[in-house]
């Protein structure tokens, strides 16, 4: 039907054109044709693109479903989950605090290593370093960034813990402790913070630097008083992404921080982070319909929302930052 209409329309156009141009020019139909093959390909590509949405939906659905089962079970009360100070699945105590505090403490230690170090390295690279030292330091950071986390976990356990114990004494530092894990986690995050901060620093317009130099500022004053404040939003985005990475970091936590939830604020004692707990429990023989299994998903859901919130905040900051300078 449609084809016929089109061809008759084409005839009319041709006739009119013929009247106008004495039908010397051969007629070519230039309207867009729909090729079924092309449409098929486009549909396939669209499915590929939409697959990521599906993944997110699946994550939220699966974590949410199992977490709901957990909160619905008679042994668990939502209030206890968020206020309880004991996590002992064996005696049906499900208070999230011991897991959260150790996660926060290790992330705090990690960030207090990664932020000053990472920022200093970034300032050095973007403001001070010559081409030669840049081309030496950049690959080193890339290698550090490419080392699998399980290797860092091994390093924390076989190097950092003995080091801390020999410096501070064996009575002070336990074999599994949050400090060693946190420090190594900081070194793990260092390349990430460095490269994100360096991007932010080098995005600062040259005029600002030249202006300050013209007023007689030293190199350090330009770096610390002009460039860093101007790139502050990008640096804070790097900081937040770093925190999110530290919270989600698993293998260092599983190997070096400990294997038992423990509500303590002493960084030299062992504890268990949220991620470490998930790995330890799911690494053993776990039956699918137990409350242990469901509780992991409740922790996972909390972890997912914590990191998602941090990531979204950092993206917002970066977006605002871009608007300022474009």
């Amino acid at each position, binding site marked *: 039907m449609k084809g016929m209409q089109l061809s008759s329309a084409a005839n009319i156009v041709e006739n009119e054109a013929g009247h106008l141009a004495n039908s010397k020019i051969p007629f070519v139909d230039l309207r867009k044709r729909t090729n079924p093959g092309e449409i098929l390909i486009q549909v396939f590509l669209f499915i590929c*693109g*939409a697959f990521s949405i599906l993944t997110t939906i699946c994550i939220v659905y699966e974590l949410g479903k199992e977490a709901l089962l957990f909160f619905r079970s008679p042994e668990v009360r939502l209030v206890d989950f968020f206020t309880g100070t004991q996590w002992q699945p064996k005696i049906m105590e499900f208070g999230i605090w011991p897991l959260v505090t150790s996660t926060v403490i290790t992330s705090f230690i990690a960030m207090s290593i990664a932020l000053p170090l990472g920022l200093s390295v970034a300032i*050095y690279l973007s403001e001070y370093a010559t081409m030669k030292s840049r081309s030496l330091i950049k690959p080193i950071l890339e290698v550090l960034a*490419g080392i699998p986390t399980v*290797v860092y976990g*091994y390093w924390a356990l076989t190097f950092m813990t003995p080091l801390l114990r020999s410096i501070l004494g064996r009575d002070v530092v336990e074999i599994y402790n949050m400090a060693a894990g946190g420090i190594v986690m900081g070194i793990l995050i260092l390349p990430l913070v460095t490269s994100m901060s360096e991007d932010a620093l080098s995005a600062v317009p040259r005029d*600002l630097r030249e202006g300050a130099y013209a007023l007689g*500022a030293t190199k350090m004053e330009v770096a610390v008083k002009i460039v860093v404040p101007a790139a502050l939003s990008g640096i804070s985005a790097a900081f937040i992404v770093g925190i999110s990475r530290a919270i989600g970091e698993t293998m260092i936590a599983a190997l070096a921080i400990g294997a038992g939830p423990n509500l303590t604020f002493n960084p030299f004692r062992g504890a268990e982070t949220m991620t470490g707990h998930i*790995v330890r429990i799911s690494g053993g023989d776990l039956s699918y319909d137990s409350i242990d299994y469901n509780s992991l998903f409740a922790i996972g859901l909390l972890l997912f929302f914590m990191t998602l919130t941090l990531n979204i905040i950092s993206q917002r900051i970066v977006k605002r930052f871009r608007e300022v300078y474009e």
Partner: protein
Amino acid sequence: MNPPPFSEAADSFASNNLPRRKKLATLWQIVFQVSTIIGIIALSALLYNIINQSFGYVAIENKIDPQSLAVDGVPIEQLGKEELVLILEENVSKGKLRQLGREKPFEERSQEEMYGLVIDEVVEPQIVKTWLLSESLIQRDQIQAEMAEEYPQAELVFRSWVNKNFISSPQSSKPLFAGIRTAILGSLWTIAITILFAFPLAVGAAIYLEEYARDNWFNRLIQTNINNLAGVPSIIYGMLGLAMFVRLLEPLTSGSVFGLVDPTTANGRTILSAGLTLMLLVLPLVIINAQEAIRAVPNSLRQASLGIGATKWQTIWAHVLPNSVSGILTGTILAISRAIGETAPLVVVGASTFITFDPSSPFSKFTTLPIQIYQWTARPQDEFRNIAGAAILVLLFLLLSLNAGAILLRNRFGR
């Protein structure tokens, strides 16, 4: 957030405490340089620690001296198969013999295999103590003195924990014989499945987002979503894999749909589940990299192609893709090297703690190199730390060669 106003800045710069400012500047420069050096020290300490663990002296004690087993002065490694069987029958209990025979009848085993059995079951070498490389090099005399005093029967050997046997033999509960063959094969199978699914999906998504997607809310949602997925902790993907692939799609991932496994004993904790989980993990990374590569293709190429009458897909297939392929491949390799080192999601998906047979299909149980490292590190004995260190060296070598490949590719095709 904004730089201080000029008047204020000018005031602080113009104040005449120049020597102090110069001093401060030097101080800060030193701080920045020291931080950078700390980063370099960290990397060196990491490598030093691993190498320190992977080589060094070990004291090995034999349960039975192999020389006492020699028949008529012929050492056991030169004996024939039949004589080795005799030695085995003399020294091993009947039950153990039957068990060994059931694994593989003696008649089918070669002389080499029999020799290995005699060493394993009769001689039974055991590690009594290990030393680090640094100790082995510096305190050699001390070690020898300690040996003579505490383990007079033991033999002191300098051992490289990374060796041919370590790479080619399967897992074992004895650190002296343990190897990473199963783990390497498991890693390769898993990664193959990851690439097989992730590559087409990611390139498709990147083409869609860069070439077809209009600027509407849904496509913006896809883009934001991909950026967010890249920041999700890997363990969350492990939990998704556990819930989706291991449990929900168990008939598919265990292979029982294809009649390969008995449905009643089917278990979804297979290579296929692991590969698919890693696929979800690397997908956002590969997509973002591929998008950048496609975006770098100059628009004039597309317009020239469209201008001579090619369709959109013809343009993409004949011009955009060939011009961005090196970028896409480099990004893929980098994402894959991340997947190879990934441990946490696979522990959650359910890697086997102990398997000695090679994986034979996507429906086999699995272990991978990082998981092997994790399990060995988690054990308290020193010897397992040594083999974990050796396994790390192999893993780092693998990753380094992959990255070198990516750099070569970039230099070769990059314009």
